[in-house]
């Protein structure tokens, strides 16, 4: 036997011992992918289609809900502006939501700093308490707040709504800001202090600019949480603080008035504008991040958990 013979035979001997994996046809693989994307397309359609279905209804010339619309008109938008209550409710909702946003963002950002950075006992318990409004059924919060407000005379007061909404919105600010803080390189703060910045200057000049996307996302969530909130409003808005969702609810319960389609269309356009500006902001902030963090940092918007 020559020296080269065994080595030449060796691979073949191995191959017979371990069967080669069966070669799948490439086409079946891409067929699977095609099928996957068909399913994905259908699911995405299911998600988006109902949202946009109200748009043509809002431009209908019919006097009641009818599809397809027999003709086009702006009568429902006219209704929205002329009929009493709608515009007032819109402005009230915006006011309540703005106050909520400011309160929740300030309180939540400060709390997140403490919860992420601090090492004090009970930190996890406090954190759980502060994000629990996310999972406690809103009806329970609403009724609890209603009993409480009845005693302190806050029922029917816009401020009462803002305060209750702030409680519901705080978890969103805390989760979003905490997520960005976790991805934040603490050495940057050390560096700032080492260079002579005191704690406030460090926060203003270094921490805040870098966690801004998280703070902004939290603020956005806070605004939307308040602006869309119905259940608490059902209990505590009384007759003095009728918000837009409350007004829509009343409308929906009575008759399906296409004015609601007009309002809905405005709200959908509003959400899309918010979403797009958030996306633009995210892209801009992405450009100011160093490459090394991009991997560490969580998605800009995060889950609306």
């Amino acid at each position, binding site marked *: 036997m020559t020296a080269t013979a065994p080595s030449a035979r060796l691979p073949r001997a191995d191959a017979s011992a371990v069967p080669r994996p069966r070669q799948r046809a490439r086409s079946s693989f891409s067929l699977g992918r095609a099928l996957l994307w068909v399913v994905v397309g259908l699911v995405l359609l299911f998600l988006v289609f109902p949202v946009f*279905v109200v748009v043509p209804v809002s431009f209908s010339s019919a006097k009641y809900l009818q599809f397809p619309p027999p003709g086009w008109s702006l009568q429902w938008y006219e209704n929205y502006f002329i009929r009493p209550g709608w515009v007032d409710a819109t402005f009230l909702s915006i006011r309540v939501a703005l106050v909520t946003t400011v309160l929740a963002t300030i309180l939540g950002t400060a709390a997140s700093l403490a919860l992420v950075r601090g090492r004090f006992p009970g930190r996890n318990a406090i954190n759980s308490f502060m994000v629990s409004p996310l999972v406690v059924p809103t009806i329970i919060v609403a009724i609890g707040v209603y009993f409480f407000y009845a005693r302190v005379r806050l029922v029917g007061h816009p401020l009462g709504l803002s305060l209750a909404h702030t409680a519901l919105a705080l978890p969103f600010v805390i989760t979003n800001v905490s997520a960005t803080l976790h991805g934040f390189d603490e050495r940057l703060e050390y560096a700032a202090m080492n260079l002579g910045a005191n704690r406030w200057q460090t926060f203003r000049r270094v921490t805040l600019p870098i966690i801004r996307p998280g703070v902004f996302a939290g603020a956005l969530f806070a605004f939307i949480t308040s602006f869309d909130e119905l259940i608490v409003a059902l209990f505590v808005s009384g007759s003095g603080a009728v918000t837009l969702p409350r007004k829509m609810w009343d409308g929906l319960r009575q008759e399906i008035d296409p004015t609601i389609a007009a309002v809905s269309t405005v709200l959908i356009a509003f959400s899309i504008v918010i979403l797009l500006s958030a996306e633009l902001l995210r892209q801009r902030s992405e450009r100011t991040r160093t490459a090394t963090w991009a991997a560490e940092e969580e998605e800009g918007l995060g889950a609306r958990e």
Partner: protein
Amino acid sequence: MATLTTEMAAAPREAQSARFAALRRREQWRYLFLLAPALVFLTAFYGYPVASMLMRAFYDPSWGGQNFAPLVEASSTVEVLGLSLPMNVYLRVFWITLQIALVTTVCTLLLGYPVAYALSSISPGRANLLMMLVLIPFWTSILVRSYAWMVLLGQEGIINEALTAAGAIENPIRLLNTRFAVYLGMVHILLPFMILPLYAVMRGIDRNLMRAAGNLGAPPAAVFRRIFLPLSLPGIAAGCLLVFILSLGFYITPQLLGGQRDVMVSMLIQQQVDLLKWGFGSALALVLLVLALVIYLVFTRLLGVERVFGSARA
């Protein structure tokens, strides 16, 4: 060290240590100072009201457990897995609620998993673009979305009109105010809550693992089943827990889309409060909350789901 200053000799080691310990404590107090406003606020406008409302279950109208009595009084029995369990109108509502939550969770998982999988397998730029289609409904008010389903499912709604026009049916069928409508609406609303955590976990899966498995001879189906699926389990657990717990508290959608019989616990609680049966309403709320809590704990302990609801890093 012999040349050191007098100060050093003057400061005994114990006193020094105590001074540093105080400094470190002050550092932690700074954090409490940041935390306090939010904590006080949340206690006043959420913790206290909710707690005092739940307490009502035990003293309204009088002290004792009588508010829980209607829940355990059996008016009939029901067969579950060969066991006959007591049943009454209130328990039935809990039963319906659990059923709706379960079906919703399963449906969102089945629909959401392929979407998250597909989006996580393409470039982040394109995925973000498609993610817009998930986020648009996510950012749209629940009320608007429920209204949209009313427009779609109503007697003269789009689906009935289309089916009639196509000649598939002669008379409009009842779609709105059915359990099916509740499922549709809730799946629609909660699907993003499933897709987002799934997507986040799947993005974090190292694709080289799958290439390695392929290189080791695993066909695509095996790669998926043996590698990708187990690694995506945390996302599945987080998504399911989130959707299930949120489902339990649903109010608006079943109210608008459901029929007479599709009553969920939240609606029952609201009814009782309307009837001024505050104690009983609170008892129902307490049971619902405990149910949610137990499910949460079982999930997190058994499956080891961490940070589902964004807890602070230990």
